[in-house]
């Protein structure tokens, strides 16, 4: 089994792409991987709240009407609204800025959205299997490199124990799909609960496994900050997702 990895620093985090298959050294694979990274870079240019010239920053300053923004920006804003509705309001794209004023901030959805787009590009690479890890959120897939989705297409994703980060609490095996984890173990209280208007302090983490990294990430965040009953809602509104609460 041939394998190869690429790592780039984008959106302020290291993003690694691992590819397995018979032809991982081919220019076709290299080009596909760079194009996958480019899709994340494009998202960063449009959506970074750290870049003064991004479309999102211009929308936040009132200089750009969302209706006049790039079609991708409009698409993401629509998805944010859907995410808010599906999660009963536990997901929000209205986050307090440095002055405590609520402003459009789709960051919580954009990362998964961008990685899903990048993953679709990698899925086009015939005869290979990929694992894309963006700051701890993971998407895997690709065409099976051995008959019957053999071991080369299986990825083992370790889920960190939020209370003892020297441990892997669970291992999830996937051929296709995504694993997203939200919690405070890594960066402290950074997950905002729109119901209380505060950043959640509690320990632990929520991991969601499912077909789309964007939705897995949205739900992981919503389930972490929202009421316990939300996991029932997830099973009702989205198929193929499961939750690991630690």
């Amino acid at each position, binding site marked *: 089994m041939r394998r190869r990895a690429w790592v780039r620093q984008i959106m302020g985090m290291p993003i690694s792409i*691992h590819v397995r298959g018979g032809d991982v050294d081919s220019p076709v694979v290299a080009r596909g991987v760079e194009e996958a990274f480019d899709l994340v870079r494009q998202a960063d240019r449009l959506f970074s709240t750290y870049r003064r010239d991004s479309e999102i920053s211009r929308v936040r300053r009132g200089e750009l009407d969302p209706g006049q923004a790039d079609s991708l920006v409009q698409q993401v804003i629509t998805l944010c609204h859907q995410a808010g509705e599906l999660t009963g309001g536990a997901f929000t794209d209205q986050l307090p800025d440095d002055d405590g004023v609520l402003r459009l901030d789709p960051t919580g959805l954009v990362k998964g959205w961008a990685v899903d787009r990048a993953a679709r590009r990698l899925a086009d690479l015939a005869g290979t299997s990929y694992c894309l890890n963006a700051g701890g959120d993971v998407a895997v897939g690709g065409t099976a490199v051995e008959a019957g989705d053999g071991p080369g297409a299986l990825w083992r994703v370790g889920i960190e124990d939020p209370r003892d980060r020297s441990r*892997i609490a669970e*291992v999830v095996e996937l051929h296709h799909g995504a*694993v997203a984890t939200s919690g405070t173990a890594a960066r402290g209280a950074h997950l905002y609960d729109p119901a209380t208007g505060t950043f959640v302090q509690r320990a632990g983490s929520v991991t969601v496994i499912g077909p789309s990294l964007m939705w897995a990430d949205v739900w992981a965040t919503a389930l972490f900050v929202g009421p316990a009953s939300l996991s029932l809602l997830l099973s009702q509104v989205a198929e193929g997702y499961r939750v690991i609460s630690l």
Partner: protein
Amino acid sequence: MRRIVFAVLSTITAVVLLFSYHTSTNSATLAGSPIPQLPASPGATSPAPSSKKSGAPTSQPSQASYTGATADTRWGPVQVKITVRGGRISASEAVQYPQNNGRDAQINGFALPILNQEVVQQQSASIDTVSGATVTSDGYLQSLQSAIDQAHL
């Protein structure tokens, strides 16, 4: 050894580039290693003089160390060296990490030893990737994964 690593790396600017060198006294290490394809990087062809790392077994015929690419984390560059024996990771060590102030020391005092354990544990459990990692550990793990992948483990 560490000085040699930095001296060589200072000449290398590529983001993902592997520097490898022997840590065992067995000069046939790389030729006989379970890693068939080392990258044709300047580092790979510039083995440092043999030396024994304290505590590292040297009797195994297929031991080699690899230093991953430097990963830029929020707090500064992090770089990891792994020791491979018999095709498995036997040890990992941070060769470069932020230590400029008390905050860095706090982060490293907490994160780096844990991550050292984690990588060995990951390898033993055959985990391909980790969900839930932090910014610092992201950099650390990515750097390791870069090294692991370059070594074709």
